[in-house]
């Protein structure tokens, strides 16, 4: 029963799930790296992405008028832009005024923003489940023996990997990326070197939410079903992934996300579904016991 094929299938199940966790985890980790703040509203920005996508593709009927591939491309770009804007506003309203106050004040503000956004989404789009429509993506399945690999899954995985590769290159190859890395290491020193730290923070709050929003759209496309409080569970899982990988470390968030997805899939597959979360979090605790700062800890010189 539990043969190689079963293992491969679960591997692909886990990687799909994990790539979504990884995309969301990036937002947590980037903000933490620069501001040392957990952006609790990040899960809601992810939900916002899913609902913007719903409005574009379903309510406005973009998918019907432009054809699915074109519509999905356009809505991806628009969701990236819109959620980035939402993230920027969030930073302006909820975090920037508190930059010089107590750390705790910012955390409370983050929680407040999360509750506000979740309720706003519920009031705007309603409390019921919304469906993206099953005919948006073709149901093409590649079969290798008994092993099934749906095209949609490859697309989700590829989208996540491409975006993460771009981000990695951006952080390590460009001057703006250098500024982000410098601000993460020491904001004071970065200021002295002529880096506008305020702009860097604003930038981080544009990139992180945009990635989270994209993940929301991907969840909508892949699973087909979204609801207003989906950000809670995904947010928690992605936050866990960021911690596993070593919060503040971008590569760590990617590794952590994929690892968490795999852990869940294998735990569910080989032990029991009911015990999945318990098992996953036992592993998390073990990782933290032996490596308190996560798998790829945020060592100052290599931060971000």
């Amino acid at each position, binding site marked *: 029963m539990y043969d190689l094929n079963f293992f491969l299938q679960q591997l692909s*199940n886990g990687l799909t799930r994990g790539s979504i966790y990884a995309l969301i985890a990036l937002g947590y980790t980037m903000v933490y790296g620069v501001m040392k703040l957990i952006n609790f509203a990040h899960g809601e920005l992810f939900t916002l992405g899913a609902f913007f996508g719903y409005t574009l593709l379903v309510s406005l009927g973009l998918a019907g008028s432009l054809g699915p591939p074109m519509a999905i491309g356009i809505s991806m770009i628009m969701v990236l832009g819109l959620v980035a804007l939402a993230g920027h506003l969030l930073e302006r309203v909820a975090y920037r005024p508190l930059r010089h106050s107590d750390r705790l004040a910012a955390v409370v503000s983050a929680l407040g923003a999360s509750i506000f956004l979740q309720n706003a989404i519920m009031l705007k789009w309603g409390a019921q489940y919304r469906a993206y429509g*099953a005919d948006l993506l073709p149901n093409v*399945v590649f079969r290798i023996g008994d092993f099934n690999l749906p095209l949609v899954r490859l697309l989700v995985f590829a989208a996540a990997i491409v975006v993460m590769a771009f981000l990695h290159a951006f952080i390590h190859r460009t001057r703006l990326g250098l500024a982000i890395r410098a601000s993460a290491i020491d904001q004071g020193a970065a200021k002295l070197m002529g880096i506008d730290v305020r702009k860097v923070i604003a930038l981080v709050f544009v990139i992180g939410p945009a990635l989270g929003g994209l993940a929301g759209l991907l969840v909508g496309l892949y699973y087909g079903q979204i609801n207003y409080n989906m950000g809670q569970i995904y947010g928690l899982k992605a936050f866990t992934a960021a911690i596993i990988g070593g919060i503040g470390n971008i590569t760590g968030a990617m590794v952590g996300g994929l690892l968490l997805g795999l852990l869940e899939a294998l735990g*569910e597959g080989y032990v029991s*579904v*009911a015990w999945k979360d318990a098992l996953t979090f036992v592993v998390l605790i073990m990782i933290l016991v032996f490596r308190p700062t996560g798998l790829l800890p945020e060592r100052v010189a290599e931060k971000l």
Partner: protein
Amino acid sequence: MRKFLCLCLCLTACLFLLSPIGPAQAADQIKFGLMGPITGDWASEGQGMQRVVELLAEEINAAGGINGAQVVIEVADDGGAPRTAAMAARKLLTSSVVAVVGTYGSSVTEATQDIYDEGGVIQIATGSTKISLTGKGLTKFFRTCPRDDEQGRVLANNVKGLGFTKVALVHDNTSYSKGLADETREILKNIGVSEVYYDSIVPNDRDYTVSLTKIKAANPDVIVFTGYYPEAGLLLRQKRELGFDVPIIGGDATNNSSIVEIAGKEAADGYLFVSPPALPDMKSESAAKLMATYRQKYDSLPSSVWAVLAGDAFLVLVEAAKAVGPDPAKMSDWLKTGLKGFEGLSGSIAFDENGDRVGEVYRLYKISPEGEFVLQ
């Protein structure tokens, strides 16, 4: 002078203390509570319940109310969550309702039963099928929906009747879903259908491909899923995506048209479930009338049968209040002894001494390629 002032003060204080005691309702009004999941995961059920009950109340008020008294509906949102429900129940009690219609989920109803009982108010659950809700000695608790043991029996018999021999049982660990799964499991064992898989899924997880892969490896010829429609829709969709071609048969909590929306017509095609009959399949006159007014006002039909059973709960309460007046104790006695052969929306309604509905109501449905629910 001071004595006089003191006296005045005391008298006003007495007036304040005395006045709110006893039902604060006007003589020409009877208040009923409706507790349902207006928001939350099951919001479409709750909103359906509210629409149906409010439409029926309008109709009754237009026809002169209950012996001249107007019917007032107080709505409280239980959010589909036990904790919220306890607060909703207290809210309804403070607005002095005589009886409460609701609610949908068994675990949610369970959290409020004692609160209503202590408050001396009748509660008629409309979708809570868990067996142990009745039979615990609560005299004012009723339900218009059948119990899980009946559902389990019908489910198991249909599995056997359709010729399936290897069953995979999946529940979602809620008190309703696990209860029904265990009930069905027991009966299947007794009638000689073998079980090859038994496990839960986590509601709201969205990704059930891991479970489905595991089920596929167990090689059943049918999956019995006892959870709710959001997960059923995802299971159907992901099953198709994994190229896993085995029928699913579900319980009454999947009787909701959103299932087709979530799964897509192609994946939903052939899905089987047992449920009390849907509104268009109900033969009563009142059902036809409700269908017409509902369609006129909301341009659709109630998305599930549970909303209609809330209507039934409301109708029997009105009937009881007409017969013995708006007194919870008298009404609940009358519902058990005096209510005979009353034609509700879903057919004839009567209650046994536990407050359970008498008579068999379950039918087998199948989703057609067009996404319609077809009575088998």
